[in-house]
């Protein structure tokens, strides 16, 4: 079974030339899409716009825009602008981020807030004429997954083991896209790096709680992070069988959290 393979990461620490090279290299390597996440330092949509002119076929995704960062109409304008400039190569991911990552007093009633936001985003008469971007919601828990199933084109899953993806497919139904990010650490100290990657995430209470709910913790890094090309191939196969429609590799090695181009170039795109 074959699914589109993408690359995801936070590019806040990239020099401009490095970012352009990264985008052109993964395009040449055959990847379907570049997802840009993070955004705490550099706004996500602007980063994508910067690499649009140096690519031809690569698709783009905002992975994700946090709904607390701007009114829905502004997100609509930004998303339509990217769709226009990239001539339809852009899709939008929206998320509620983590309470611990959002400024005080703003994070509240995430599912209701997301429902309101998506409705406002869809209903806003703003932004240039361009192909409608697909809409993905970052979802980990049942209520957000149900909302995505109702209002969006798909879900973007993070830190999610294969076993959980099959459950998500049950929850969202057969027609929704499921993008699963797969962290990859290659090389001699791959397992050490995989462990550190999971430990860094578990430091955030929300991730700790969600992983805990799935019976996972730092020592489950083997289920979450792929540590050899053979494991990557195996993971891709298993995720596709479980219902994933797109797999986004994230580098957990190299200078994590900085995306490591060589890791992506070693994998089969």
């Amino acid at each position, binding site marked *: 079974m074959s699914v589109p393979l993408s690359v995801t990461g936070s590019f806040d620490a990239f020099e*401009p030339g490095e*970012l*352009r090279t990264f985008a052109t290299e993964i395009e040449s390597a055959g990847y379907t899409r570049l997802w840009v996440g993070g*955004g*705490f*330092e*550099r*706004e996500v*949509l*602007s*980063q*994508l*716009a*910067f*690499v*649009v*002119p*140096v690519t031809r076929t690569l698709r783009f995704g905002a992975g994700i825009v946090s709904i*607390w*960062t*701007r*009114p829905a*109409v*502004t997100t609509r*304008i*930004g998303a339509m*602008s*990217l769709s*226009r*400039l990239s*001539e339809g190569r852009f899709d939008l991911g929206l998320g509620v981020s983590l309470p611990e990552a959002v*400024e005080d007093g703003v994070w509240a009633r995430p599912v209701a807030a997301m429902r309101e936001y998506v409705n406002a985003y869809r209903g806003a*008469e*703003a*932004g*240039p004429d361009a192909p409608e971007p697909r809409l993905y919601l970052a979802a980990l828990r049942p209520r957000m997954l149900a909302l995505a199933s109702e209002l969006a084109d798909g879900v973007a899953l993070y830190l999610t083991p294969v076993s959980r993806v099959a459950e998500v497919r049950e929850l969202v139904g057969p027609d929704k896209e499921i993008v699963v990010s797969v962290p990859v650490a290659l090389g001699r100290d791959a397992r050490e790096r995989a462990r550190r990657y999971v430990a860094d995430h578990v430091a955030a209470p929300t991730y700790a709680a969600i992983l805990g709910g799935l019976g996972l913790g730092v020592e489950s890094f083997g289920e979450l992070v792929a540590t050899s090309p053979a494991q990557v191939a195996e993971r891709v196969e298993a995720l596709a069988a479980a219902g994933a429609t797109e797999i986004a590799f994230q580098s957990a090695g190299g200078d994590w959290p900085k995306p490591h181009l060589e890791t992506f170039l070693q994998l089969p795109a």
Partner: protein
Amino acid sequence: MATFGVYGAIEEMPVDAMTERLQSIEELGYDSFWVGENIGMDAFVQLAFAASVTTRLRFGTAIVPIWSRTAATMRASSRALADLSGDRFTLGVGASHPAFAEQTWGVRPDAPVTRMREYLARYAEAAQEGDRRVPLYIAALRPRMLELAAEHADGVLPYLVTPERIAEMRSVVGTSTKIGAALAVSVDDDRRVALRRAREYLGVYREADVYRTSLFACGFGPDDLDPEPSERLVHAIVALGSAAEVTERLREFVEAGADQLNLMTLDGDPWYEPHPPTLAALAPLLLR
């Protein structure tokens, strides 16, 4: 020595034409390209694209309304532009217009100067260690906003003003605050053609309260706006005529205290797109 930039909208062009237009503005030697943001294209997205297809041209927003993003997001956007363009970015923010703000973002900017002051404080708090310095300009026409800008910003971005008004603003903001004005220009050896274009352009603003108020403060009256812009108003606000005459008029704005003039050409179709022949006619006279 004043610098000359280009202000205009390229967002309706085919993408390849956008790239060519930006590159031609750069090749002609203009200092910078400025865009506004309302409900068309995202200014940061557009300028990040522009930064990627140019090497020297600088960019600015004139302006992004403060209601459009949280101050932390505004900071992340300006940081992205400054980092990716290699320090070629200037942030211009404004309070927009009450009716437009309410319609678009559901806010009622009852006290724009106070809201701007609060926003600038949050924007300052959102700075991170190692940030590049991004010049900050504020759209300002009236004394209190000008004073706020003089205190908290690097410059002001007035619009629809005369040289006399620039001189008054200079006396309010002092010598260390930059004044960057957007200025409409129409180059045509047939003055009647230039005049007609200028009238059509100014007609757009006849019903905008903030500009009416500001024009009245420049010494114009309702007779200058209704039922159509008077010749006196047109000649005061728009630099028009031959390239030499336009250049002469632009010098008067510079002598009055403008540090930066961003030219809005009225001669293209549609008029709000930067018109390369006009820019090419003025470049040898202005950019020496």
